[in-house]
């Protein structure tokens, strides 16, 4: 039995929805009718434009109510269990997790390597302020974050990580022209392997065109692309450190 659902206004299956939008036309009777026709055009019926106002000479704002006959089968909806963002822990939860499970601060060193001068990515993850309401790693009480900035040679990144006893390396690559990022990322892993230190650090790559698949292929533990935040990275690093400790 399909379980069909429609929006609920004040009666089951009345299909009522509220809409608000702007049209690039002047306010007035013609504008209001344009709004009504728009709503009907989107497949709703019984549209009532309950409010209109001029935003400027050429733009107008509308509030409308309408009904839809369209229902969907509730059983066909799926909770996106794979959605990392949903499953990810918040900053406080990650701090608590590190405190409880590792019992010490996690040291993370990040840099934008090679000649890439774009710190946008690494800063979004590491800087105090973070990005889009996700605080950066510097804000975490249980993470000691070192942001080395841009144009950092791989050798220097490793040297620094050794010096501060890092648990994890974050490498950001924004420029991908002529696959320059592949070379930079591969070099880091090769240098670490040559020194016998690959196992010492959790290695994470990031950037708008870096996916998990590519990063893992290049020898990293994970890759984070567009739409990733500090808490996604921090949660991964913390869990990875724990699983590495168990493996030992």
């Amino acid at each position, binding site marked *: 039995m399909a379980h069909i659902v429609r929006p609920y206004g004040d009666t089951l299956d009345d299909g009522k929805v509220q809409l608000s939008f*702007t049209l690039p036309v002047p306010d007035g009777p013609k504008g209001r009718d344009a709004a009504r026709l728009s709503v009907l055009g989107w497949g709703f019926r019984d549209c009532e434009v309950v409010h209109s106002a001029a935003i*400027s000479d050429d733009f107008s*704002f509308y509030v409308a109510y309408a009904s839809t006959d369209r229902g969907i089968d509730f059983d066909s909806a799926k909770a996106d269990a794979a959605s990392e963002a949903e499953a990810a822990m918040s900053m406080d939860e990650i701090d608590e997790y590190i405190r409880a499970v590792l019992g010490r601060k996690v040291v993370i060193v990040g840099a934008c390597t090679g000649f890439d001068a774009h*710190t*946008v990515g690494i800063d979004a993850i590491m800087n*105090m302020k973070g990005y889009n*309401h996700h605080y950066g790693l510097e*804000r975490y009480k249980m993470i000691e974050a070192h942001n080395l900035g841009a144009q950092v040679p791989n050798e220097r990144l490793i040297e620094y990580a050794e010096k501060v006893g890092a648990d994890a390396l974050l490498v950001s690559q924004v420029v991908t022209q002529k696959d320059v990022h592949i070379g930079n990322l591969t070099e880091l892993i090769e240098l670490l392997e040559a020194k016998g230190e690959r196992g010492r650090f959790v290695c994470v790559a990031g950037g708008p065109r870096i996916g998990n698949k590519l990063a893992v292929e290049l020898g990293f533990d994970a890759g984070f692309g567009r739409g990733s935040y500090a808490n996604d990275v921090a949660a991964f690093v913390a869990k990875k450190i724990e699983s590495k400790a168990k493996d030992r």
Partner: protein
Amino acid sequence: MRKKLGLSEEKIARGRELASAIVAPIMEFVRGYTTVTVERATLRIAGADGADADGVPVPNKIVDSLRSSDSGLGDGALLRYADAAERSALPPEALNARIAEGFDLASRPVADAAAARRKAEELVAAGLERISRNKRRREEKLREFAGRNNDPLLYLIVATGNIHEDVKQAQAAALKGADVVAVIRTTAQSLLDYVPYGATTEGFGGTYATQENFRIMRAALDEVAEREKRYIRLTNYASGLCMPEIAAMGALERLDMMLNDSMYGILFRDINMYRTFVDQRFSRMINAYAGITINTGEDNYLTTSDAFENADTVLASQFLNERFAYEAGLPARLMGLGHAYEMDPSIKDGFLFELAQAQMAREIFPEHPLKYMPPTKFMSGDVFQGLVMDSMFNFASKATGQGIHLLGMLTEAIHTPFMMDRFIGLESAKYVMNSMSSFAEEIEFREGGIVRSRAAEVLDQAVSFLEDIEKRGLLDSIAAGLFAEVKRAKDGGKGLDGLVKKGPAYWNPVEAELERALGIGG
């Protein structure tokens, strides 16, 4: 302004005294140094502008070439530019074009220093006269349209990335009642050690601050101002690695406000502290000379730290920002000291604590046009609840006589505002503020009540926080993470390599004239 909180005047005086003691050693250091962007700002005021075919700005070409030459930057950059202008007899535009094509100022020593100095003074006088003219024009318009702005000034942000699209949105906002329009900058412009050139149509989360973009938006807002008989203020960001240059460009194009904090770059953008302290002074001197109102960034403390627990750090920072601003010649009426309505909405009596904080700032900084920022941290995506929170914020602002009111957006945390989001923000603020217009004169706060007690407590905490900073010194306090829980090493951060010790022959007639005009000692 009638005082209602019964705050201890001695405590307030003590806060100011501590701020002076904290800032004094910084200023001593600052006067001995220049930076690449201070030199570029100086050049810009003297007429250096434009960019080469690769987009490298002419002021950068001059400064970079001098720095890598034997002479270095210790004597300042302006004399070399003036010498080239004098010898070539070219006006700045033509000289700029030659430099853009590859002419290297560092390639030959100054021929006749006296003649070059005269030329430099002539160029600087022309730039400063343009800035003074802009200041007079603003004052005339504010007089002509007196009484037409909202109180507090309603401040809106546009951020499309395309200056021409920004113009449409800004004009719509201004027509509907916005008094201040800020064009937010593209992500990470603060970390560029140059200012891009020309009109721009692509940005990420904002629009590049360029002088041409300033000019385009200025003209667009002036058009609305004439039509509405209401002066519309234009705001940008004199922050990041190019603080003084952006201030200079804003002064040349008659911007009215600049986001300009003495420590924001250090704490939130990891810019080196020495560099920032030198840059902030020069940028604030330019703002002071141009009559530009600064907006400080204390709201950032509250988006990173807890607004209830760390309320004292906001007040302490306001004291410090005020002191740094006085040192740069800014009068109180140009200091838009920042703070924000950012407490967790689930706190019982949270509104009373917000009211206490806002009223306290008002009473401690009575002449300053306080810049009040809306809730952002606890805006969830529930636009309906968000609108209620913004309305409470609007109420607190009007009830405590704030000066510059950044309108909350009901879609905060969802997307950059739609045109209708700004419209809803404006209309709801106008409703709240009109319907409670005289509320502030009507209301008193009960002695021993929540509001008075909270304000007294925050003032106490701020003073003891400042005492701690004074003992440690400001630089060590920042290094120890006392502000916003961020630690910054003295020799760390971006831009330190752009710091230059002034040599015995350092000469900068812009700095000298600003110091003279503003009555601040060199």
